């Protein structure tokens, strides 16, 4: 599916979300302006007219989308502040958390996967497989409080909550990265095993290259192709996981903002969040596609040589 169509679809779904939300935007806005006092029906009718809430759905969608494109996602029901501004202000914290988690997952998962494959059947391989099983079954929201319990509460090595220093980043990023690390390790192991059975690896061995050069030099680049493919999905997964992790560690990112929004029934916040995250996910996947082409030059020829 092409990019413009996907963007159109994402915007329609995000727009429709607010239509399923209970409560009337005009009434909630008036409640806020009156300091919590219920507005008169007359006032509600007037504001509905003024905000254009009585217009047909396609017209409202058109208005919403043209505002969204210009960076206006409306105002928060609660504070009256611009949602787009707040999301943009908080996005760096979320991206930092997700990127650190991804970096940790890649830095640990890929080498461990290669080691497991090279030492297939040994205790190292077995431990890596166990780690992969555990990683797939321990969600970040279990990992996070457990890490917090040991490293912050019991040992006191790292702060439990907070934001600002690298020390604050470590626990949330570790908790978030664990599952992805295990998944990358498992995938790398399978992929390396697959590659090591190929003819060109036998050739490299036959011409007397050292085992290290065969594995890390010849094998790894092609073994990484399937791993790179899932990096896009992993990032989406990490961005989603960040929502939970942020609310546990008091991390001031977009996830914390949206959870607050949900608990205060501030639905435009949820809507703006979904739109931003889906577009970010789309762009990340696009970047992954591009890097994939760079890693696998065969794809430059439109797959003619595949």
């Amino acid at each position, binding site marked *: 599916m092409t990019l413009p*169509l996907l963007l159109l679809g994402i915007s329609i779904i995000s727009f429709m979300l607010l239509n399923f939300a209970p409560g009337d935007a005009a009434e909630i806005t008036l409640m806020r302006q009156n300091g919590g006092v219920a507005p008169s029906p007359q006032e509600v009718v007037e504001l509905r007219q003024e905000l254009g809430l009585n217009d047909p759905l396609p017209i409202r969608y058109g208005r919403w989308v043209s505002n969204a494109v210009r960076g206006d996602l409306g105002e928060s029901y609660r504070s009256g502040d611009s949602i787009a501004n707040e999301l943009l202000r908080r996005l760096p914290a979320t991206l930092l958390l997700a990127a650190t988690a991804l970096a940790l997952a890649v830095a640990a998962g890929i080498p461990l996967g290669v080691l497991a494959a090279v030492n297939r059947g040994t205790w190292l391989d077995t431990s890596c497989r166990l780690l992969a099983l555990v990683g797939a*079954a*321990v*969600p970040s929201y279990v990992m996070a409080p457990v890490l917090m*319990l040991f490293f912050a509460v019991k040992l006191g090595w790292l702060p439990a909550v907070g934001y600002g220093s690298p020390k604050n980043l470590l626990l949330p990023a570790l908790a978030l990265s664990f599952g992805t690390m295990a998944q990358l390790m498992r995938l790398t192991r399978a992929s390396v095993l697959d590659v090591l059975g190929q003819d060109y690896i036998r050739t490299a061995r036959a011409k007397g290259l050292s085992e290290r050069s065969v594995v890390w030099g010849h094998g790894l680049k092609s073994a990484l192709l399937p791993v790179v493919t899932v990096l896009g999905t992993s990032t989406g997964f990490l*961005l*989603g996981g960040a929502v939970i992790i942020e609310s546990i560690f008091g991390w001031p990112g977009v996830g914390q903002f949206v959870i607050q929004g949900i608990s205060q029934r501030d639905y435009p916040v949820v809507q703006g969040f979904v739109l931003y995250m889906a577009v970010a996910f789309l762009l990340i996947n696009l970047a992954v596609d591009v890097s994939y082409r760079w890693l696998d030059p065969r794809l430059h020829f439109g797959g003619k040589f595949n």
Partner: protein
Amino acid sequence: MEGALRRRIPRRAILHNMHRDPGSFLGFGIVAGVILVAALAPLLPLHDPTHLDLQNRLLSPSFEFPLGTDHLGRDELSRLIFGARTTLLMSAASLAIIMTLASTVGSLSGYYGGWLDTVLMMVVDLMLAFPSLILGVAVAGILGPSLINVMIAVSVVWWASHARVIRGMVLSARNKEYVEGARAIGASDGRIVVYHISRNIVGPLVVLVTLDMGWIILGIAGLSFLGLGAQPPTPEWGAMLNDSRSYMQTSPILLLAPGSAIFLLVLGFNLMGDGIRDILDPTTYR
């Protein structure tokens, strides 16, 4: 291909392989054990999982309360066991919704093809363009916190990828001789899909379902952890985990118990799924 595969591997071989593969055997045992305990929960000599007793809050494990009591004086072991019922029932119900939706869309798309296929697959692509947890949080958050809404959210997020897989299966089954035969004796399209094709794809679907149970359990518990799912006093693992956070220093067991329960059940389903997949995948079939 799937049909042929199923015929080539007799049921006895599945059991035999399962026996040889301790992992999937263990997984099967864990899942069966949890289901058994959850089913028998009302018959077990347990405290009422919702009975508040503020005199006995945050007790350490004892003979009477093997896992202690929570912040409202409720028996943690009893909540854990009744929580398994909540988790299993919700996951099974979500799975039923997902499979119904996915089979309907997948069959229509795969069987009829053409513009219908194009449109439905566009919808599927669109759903897959959202990071799953983010869409789940948004849907559950907007519908409001409740068990039903969490099941809706999980289903909205998960049906699309299955619809695509089922479409592929129906597509490849559509041109088989048995479908042609059924059509030749005058069977309607509906009858062909429901009676003939579905019987031949049910095997691979079972695998798909088992592999997915772990993810669904994690999704439901995660949304409940955020306060979007089970509402008090319903015992649910994700919600219990969230409740325990304020007391982790004094009563770490309240955190570790539901955490381990989630881990164990998901591990069980994953091991079981891996085992079944290995057996059905001819490249790893010994």
